[in-house]
């Protein structure tokens, strides 16, 4: 086996540790732009595992490649909002200028042009990642200018505008043309908190148990969407024995339409990290990990600087803030492009250098998580919120929100509205007010909670389907139609992770929105469960059949019944992968019924009349078939 010095260096840096395979592959990819068969053989030899196992991780993630990519690699976002804001023209402009169809590397190896799932820029679409830099609000004109610059061999930094985005987007370590678009601030985003105040002061008056008690009393629930009580999670985690205990901050926000964590990490990173340290204090954790989605790699340098500053101030490391034996450090782990890694056990697998395949539960991460240690995983927003709660107290927090949903929620609003961006609202706000707030007129439907959420419509809501269906399709969010715009965002009514996408009356809900969402789930399935690997494809095929005018009534019933099998999948992604179709049948059934052939109960799979039409035309005769 020939020695490969470059890779040997990288392996040395990570102590030949198999569990750091993500970092190893990321560095190789960064240095040489792909990881080929020879590299895999070399890694397999050095790490003592089969090449197949290396490739298992490599081939799983969207941003890894085993073939040579271009000098410039363009990943064009394919979210529904991007498509609503002119992605088709932008894509065409890229294809023409780069001389390659999307999904390929150009012949001259200058350009790789690829589609990618939502990159968290829904408020400034169409957007693309080019050599790890973010380019937003693209137009065909801008695309041609960009490609010309690249053809002239300019480094990607030179192609960005001089005036970067607002706030920390202009920081020398970020330099991104991304805008925060913070449009409404409440108790979390208000600039009334000097970073690390709690950590530098009051924390010394608390015992770990008392911190957990405050969080429990505040009724804080996980802000990623699932809404698990945070205090309870900390308590569980603190009770399990282990040689180490782990705090993970889940910054893998991949739900299309969500971008709140991007803004928190850009503008409030101190609060997120402080939340992690407080969680570590409360639970006795010593290992801290922040899993950052690859799409936000442009923030990595900036975030690492913040960690270094904390270390210098003794807010990380040993005897933190002078508290004896309180030792905790944080490492940022970069992902490599996989929505499913937002699922906490898949995220742990990824952190261990494996493909992001969710684990069977039990055991839960709080019992057996990262490298087998008890692990507490919290969302970015949850951790930031915990800081404010500790600073002001649980009683203060109870002044905001509703009885069953205390506090505030960051909403990422995009789609057909005048003012897309981040809004911090108190729980209990009605959909109607959300629409007014962001300047949305003529709304046909709203997706609350991303594609895995539900599409709530008007028509059949009160019908018999409701009880039987609700049992199966527990929403993590929903598409809300006009009749329900009085409903409120809260854990007891419309729970949400914060993604709000608005569709006006000009939008084709089935042909554009639902199909786009289904493509997303098909692309992002890990493939482990037989159900989630196959059913979304079959369901999409059936929807296409219906949209093509070849459907019969039974096709709608079939879709509903197939959805039940999908519920047998292991993780939330699989269980909700049919929601775009199921909830749109549930709420916009009339759109389906418009397309199916109402007279036919039975699908014979073949339209004889249509098939002989050209012949009949030719011989000037009219078809005369009996309809069964």
């Amino acid at each position, binding site marked *: 086996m020939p020695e490969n010095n470059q890779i040997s260096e990288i392996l040395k840096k990570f102590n030949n540790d198999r569990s750091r395979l993500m970092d190893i592959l990321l560095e190789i990819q960064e240095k040489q732009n792909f990881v080929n068969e020879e590299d895999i*053989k070399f890694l*397999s030899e050095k790490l*003592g*595992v*089969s*090449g*197949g*196992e290396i*490739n*298992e991780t490599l*081939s*799983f993630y969207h941003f890894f490649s085993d073939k040579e990519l271009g000098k410039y690699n363009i990943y064009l976002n394919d979210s529904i909002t991007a498509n609503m804001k002119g992605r088709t023209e932008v894509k065409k402009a890229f294809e023409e200028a780069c001389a390659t169809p999307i999904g390929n590397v150009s012949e001259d190896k200058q350009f790789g042009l690829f589609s990618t799932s939502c990159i968290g820029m829904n408020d400034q679409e169409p957007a693309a990642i080019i050599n790890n830099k973010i380019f937003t609000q693209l137009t065909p004109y801008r695309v041609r200018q960009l490609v010309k610059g690249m053809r002239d061999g300019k480094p990607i930094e030179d192609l960005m505008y001089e005036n970067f985005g607002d706030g920390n987007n202009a920081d020398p370590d970020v330099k991104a043309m991304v805008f925060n678009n913070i449009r409404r601030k409440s108790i979390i985003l208000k600039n009334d908190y000097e970073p690390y105040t709690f950590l530098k002061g009051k924390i010394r008056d608390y015992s770990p148990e008392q911190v957990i008690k405050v969080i429990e009393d505040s009724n804080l629930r996980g802000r990623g969407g699932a809404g698990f009580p945070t205090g309870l999670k900390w308590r569980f985690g603190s009770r399990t024995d282990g040689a180490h205990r782990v705090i993970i901050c889940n910054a893998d926000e991949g739900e299309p339409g969500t971008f709140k964590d991007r803004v928190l990490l850009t503008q409030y990173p101190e609060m997120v990290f402080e939340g992690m340290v407080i969680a570590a204090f409360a639970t006795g954790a010593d290992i801290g990990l922040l899993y950052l989605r690859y799409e936000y790699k442009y923030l990595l340098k900036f975030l690492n600087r913040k960690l270094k500053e904390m270390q210098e101030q003794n807010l990380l490391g040993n005897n933190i803030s002078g508290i004896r034996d309180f030792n905790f450090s944080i490492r940022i782990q970069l992902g490599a492009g*996989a929505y499913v890694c937002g699922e906490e056990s898949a995220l742990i697998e990824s952190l261990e250098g494996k*493909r992001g395949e969710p684990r*069977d539960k*039990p055991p839960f991460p709080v019992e057996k998580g990262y490298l087998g240690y008890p692990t507490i995983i919290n969302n970015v927003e949850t951790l930031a919120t915990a800081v404010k709660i500790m600073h002001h107290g649980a009683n203060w927090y109870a002044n905001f929100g509703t009885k069953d949903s205390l506090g505030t929620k960051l909403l990422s609003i995009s789609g057909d509205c005048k003012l897309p961006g981040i809004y911090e609202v108190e729980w209990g706000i009605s959909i109607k007010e959300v629409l007014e707030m962001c300047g949305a007129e003529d709304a046909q439907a709203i997706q609350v909670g991303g594609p895995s959420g539900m599409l709530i419509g008007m028509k059949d809501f009160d019908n018999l389907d409701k009880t039987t269906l609700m049992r199966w399709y527990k929403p993590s969010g929903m598409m809300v139609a006009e009749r329900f715009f009085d409903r409120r965002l809260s854990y007891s009514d419309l729970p949400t992770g914060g993604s709000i996408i608005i569709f006006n009356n000009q939008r084709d809900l089935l042909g554009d929105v639902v199909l786009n969402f289904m493509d997303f789930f*098909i*692309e*992002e*399935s*890990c*493939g*482990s*469960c*037989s*159900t989630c*690997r*196959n*059913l979304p*494809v*079959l369901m999409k*095929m*059936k929807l296409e059949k219906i949209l093509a005018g070849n459907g019969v009534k039974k096709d709608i019933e*079939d879709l509903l*019944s*197939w959805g*039940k*099998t999908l*519920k*047998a*999948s*292991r993780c939330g992604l699989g269980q909700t992968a049919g929601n775009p179709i199921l909830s749109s049948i549930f709420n916009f059934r009339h759109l389906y019924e418009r397309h199916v052939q109402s007279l036919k109960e039975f699908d014979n799979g073949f339209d004889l009349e249509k098939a002989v039409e050209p012949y009949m035309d030719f011989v000037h005769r009219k078809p005369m078939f009996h309809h069964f």
Partner: protein
Amino acid sequence: MSNQIKIVIDGQEIITERGKTIVEVARENNIFIPTLCFFEGAEKKANCRICTIKINNRMMTSCTTPVVDGMEIENNTPELNDIRKSIIELLFVSGNHFCPACEKSGNCELQALAYRYQMMVPRFPYWFPKKQIDASNKKIIKEQNRCIACKRCIKTIFDEKGRRYFAFKNRGQKLEVVLDQVMGKTMSDEIAKKAMENCPVGSILYRETGFEVPIGERKYENEPIGSNLKG
């Protein structure tokens, strides 16, 4: 602390011990729960989902869930049996399982389960996506059209250093189980035969010999799957 606990499967009370999974307890007590990706002694990972049962109205997989005192399990119900049948049908249309031409016929667990659940015409359209056959190895043929990605070969076939011969590749619809090209070159006959044996379907085929046991005299032809258990 006593290790003895009591659980209930479909109304039947069972005394058993802590630490076992639901599937194991069911088998010991003569109760049939279908499995495909489950392999005794191997790492537990519920990929096929066919052993889905319900606990507190929540779907769980019985091959991974440990029994807990007082657990009440729904197993043999029309609803669950229909989900199981639909998974079998799903596996049939998402691959290409042409039993009459398959060396594994009669020893195939997927085929045997299809008989048990009386699959006639699948509820899904005839999808049969075309996949590549990997015939590059000297000892085995990997017929991807029959692979159900159950992971049994991945979880059970190792070399003396504990390295895996088989691995997943890609994700989602493009997911495949592939043989490591380097390790495949030195694969022994013994390992190759074991790989074929552990495969529940006819996706891993040992070369050169075939049909040693004639059709009609094979495992599930004499004893339909689960017929040794009461049901």
